[in-house]
């Protein structure tokens, strides 16, 4: 009833078969890259244990004390390797972002948190037991002896305490009780935890003693990780900010609780083509500068003059304490930018057909994607979901783009039915419509979804039931 279409529903006619898929090569390369990264990650874990094996460590199992010590050492090696992997996953490395996307990288990052902590705890406990047995001491006395007698061990204890603090505060249950800012500050302590754990790794025990090749390997991976972090999380953002010199030019309300923030800067052509990818914005105003916001551009940057100066725009909604303050930004405020990140773009295309579905403020990256992603007229479908027609932000611009580029556009407005898990409005759901009803070639299309988490998951379920494979689904979270 509330469905409006600007072009007629096309009959489900058979198209000319075996049309060329221009994204096949790109897709295969990306999958290969992702698999390679997975192999490297697991291989690094095996490698850490192999370092110990190559040192003849397996011989330690001949005695009980030796067995405890051996397992403790392996636990430490594996735990540290996982920690390094976690750091790399959060470092926003282009090679990882381009293969699996920042979202999935953070997902793996979170998954590794508990195992790495358990391994590090096991490392400490088992070594206290093992060394203790070798010296004839109980584990507690041994732990004290380690603190007092062996250089650099007190730092290791500090490191352990910091790791525990970081992981505990990251537990979802704990995270909800504290504001985001507190959790973020504690999370930064991870760097301190890693740094304080390093000295004892190179000065205690024989595996990484001077002269062993294992020492070189471990130095290389630690230094490599540190260098990657510094480069991609510190240097590149600074360089980008200085280069683009972004300042807020105006803040425009585009709906209830939604504003568009326009910014002027230089060399903005370098930021174009990012489609629906997101940037991390820091508005350098008092009280705002330390809060990072992940937002996509809502329009391609506009080139205004020959010097490279131009304008760009983001459209954001009041979602939390941080974003509420955005509406009050003053023109002229400087902006620090990092990015682009994420796979919500042409880089993750794998099929010639493309479906773009956005709800609420999630429409924003859809609009950016729609503006640039390549498709033949008729090969694209755009679905906008909202409570009411006025809730379809940027609706006019999207309509204009669809008309110009030949994409099919649907507006689906209205509340969802009570008690039912569906992404559709009530009447459409009751009429038995599914995603495939709007997109006949769904099984052979890339599906880009952006919107509130619960709704988006329903869309994805619908698509999977219609036979769409995981590699074709692209979901951009924006509320993390």
């Amino acid at each position, binding site marked *: 009833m509330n469905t409006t279409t600007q072009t007629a529903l096309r009959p489900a006619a058979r198209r000319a078969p075996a049309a060329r898929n221009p994204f096949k090569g790109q897709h295969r390369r990306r999958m290969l890259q992702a698999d390679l990264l997975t192999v490297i990650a697991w291989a690094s874990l095996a490698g850490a244990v192999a370092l110990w094996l*190559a040192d003849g460590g397996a011989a330690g199992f001949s005695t009980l004390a030796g067995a405890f010590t051996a397992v403790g050492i392996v636990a430490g090696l594996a735990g540290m390797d996982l920690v390094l992997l976690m750091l790399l996953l959060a470092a926003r490395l282009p090679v990882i972002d381009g293969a699996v996307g920042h979202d999935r990288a953070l997902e793996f990052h979170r998954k590794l948190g508990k195992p790495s902590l358990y391994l590090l705890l096991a490392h400490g406990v088992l070594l206290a037991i093992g060394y203790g047995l070798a010296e004839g001491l109980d584990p507690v006395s041994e732990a004290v002896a380690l603190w007092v007698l062996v250089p650099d061990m007190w730092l290791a204890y500090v490191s352990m305490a910091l790791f525990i603090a970081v992981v505990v505060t990251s537990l979802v249950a704990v995270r909800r009780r504290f504001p985001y800012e507190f959790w973020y500050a504690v999370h930064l302590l991870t760097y301190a935890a890693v740094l304080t754990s390093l000295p004892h790794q190179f000065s205690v*025990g024989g595996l990484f003693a001077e002269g062993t090749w294992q020492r070189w390997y471990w130095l290389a991976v630690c230094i490599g990780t540190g260098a990657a972090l510094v480069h991609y999380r510190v240097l590149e953002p600074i360089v980008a900010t200085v280069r683009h010199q972004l300042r807020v030019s105006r803040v425009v309300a585009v709906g209830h609780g939604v504003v568009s923030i326009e910014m002027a800067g230089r060399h903005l052509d370098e930021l174009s083509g990012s489609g629906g990818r997101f940037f991390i914005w820091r508005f350098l105003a008092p009280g705002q500068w330390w809060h990072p916001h992940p937002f996509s551009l809502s329009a391609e940057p506009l080139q205004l003059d020959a010097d490279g100066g131009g304008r760009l725009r983001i459209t954001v909604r009041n979602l939390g304490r941080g974003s509420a303050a955005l509406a009050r930004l003053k023109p002229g405020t400087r902006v620090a930018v990092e990015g682009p990140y994420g796979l919500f773009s042409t880089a993750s295309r794998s099929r010639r057909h493309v479906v773009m579905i956005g709800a609420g403020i999630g429409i924003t990256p859809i609009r950016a994607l729609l503006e640039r992603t390549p498709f033949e007229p008729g090969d694209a479908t755009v679905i906008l979901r909202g409570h009411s027609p006025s809730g379809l932000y940027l609706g006019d611009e999207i309509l204009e783009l669809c008309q110009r580029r030949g994409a099919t556009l649907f507006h689906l407005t209205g509340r969802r039915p009570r008690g039912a898990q569906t992404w559709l409005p009530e009447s459409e759901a009751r009429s038995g419509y599914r995603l495939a009803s709007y997109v006949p070639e769904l099984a052979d299309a890339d599906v880009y979804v952006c919107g509130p988490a619960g709704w988006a998951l329903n869309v994805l379920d619908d698509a999977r039931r219609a036979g769409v494979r995981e590699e074709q689904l692209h979901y951009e979270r924006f509320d993390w």
Partner: protein
Amino acid sequence: MRIRAVVSATLASAGILIAGWQSGTHVADTASATGTTAGPASAGSTGAGTGTTGSAGSGAGSSSKSSSGSAGSSAAASGSTGSSGASSNAGGTFAGDVVQTRFGSVQVQISVTGGKITDVTALQLTDEDRRSVQISNRAAPLLRAEVLKAQSANVQTISGATVTSSAYLTSLQAALDAAHL
């Protein structure tokens, strides 16, 4: 694609672990095949270990010694090593398993004379500079009694700080030369 990743990752990891394992057993074999050395390390002290050279893999020095005429040492099962064989008595020094302690790897060495254990010492395999002593041939403190000896009768030439012609006359070398002239 995921299956491919899982299979490749499993194969790669298994390969790496096996390579490490193999390399490790090779290290253990080499350690038990070369001769042993004695160390005066302060056994069981809680201070940082004094610098001693370990028996494992000391390589050139000890293996050339064992081939130069002293009773050759032969590889025994991992965990114990052959005797140094400098003396002709039944006995020698044997090294036990490597034990991980809070100060690093320690190998216990026992000395056997006439079938009885006469000494037990702990060899530190990383010295106080955190160097892996297995790969370094550093000079370490030694007692006079532990130095390689030979009776004067077995020696064919004498090395000492440069002997002047006049000092030579009363030197051991002169005695030897006189015997050979």
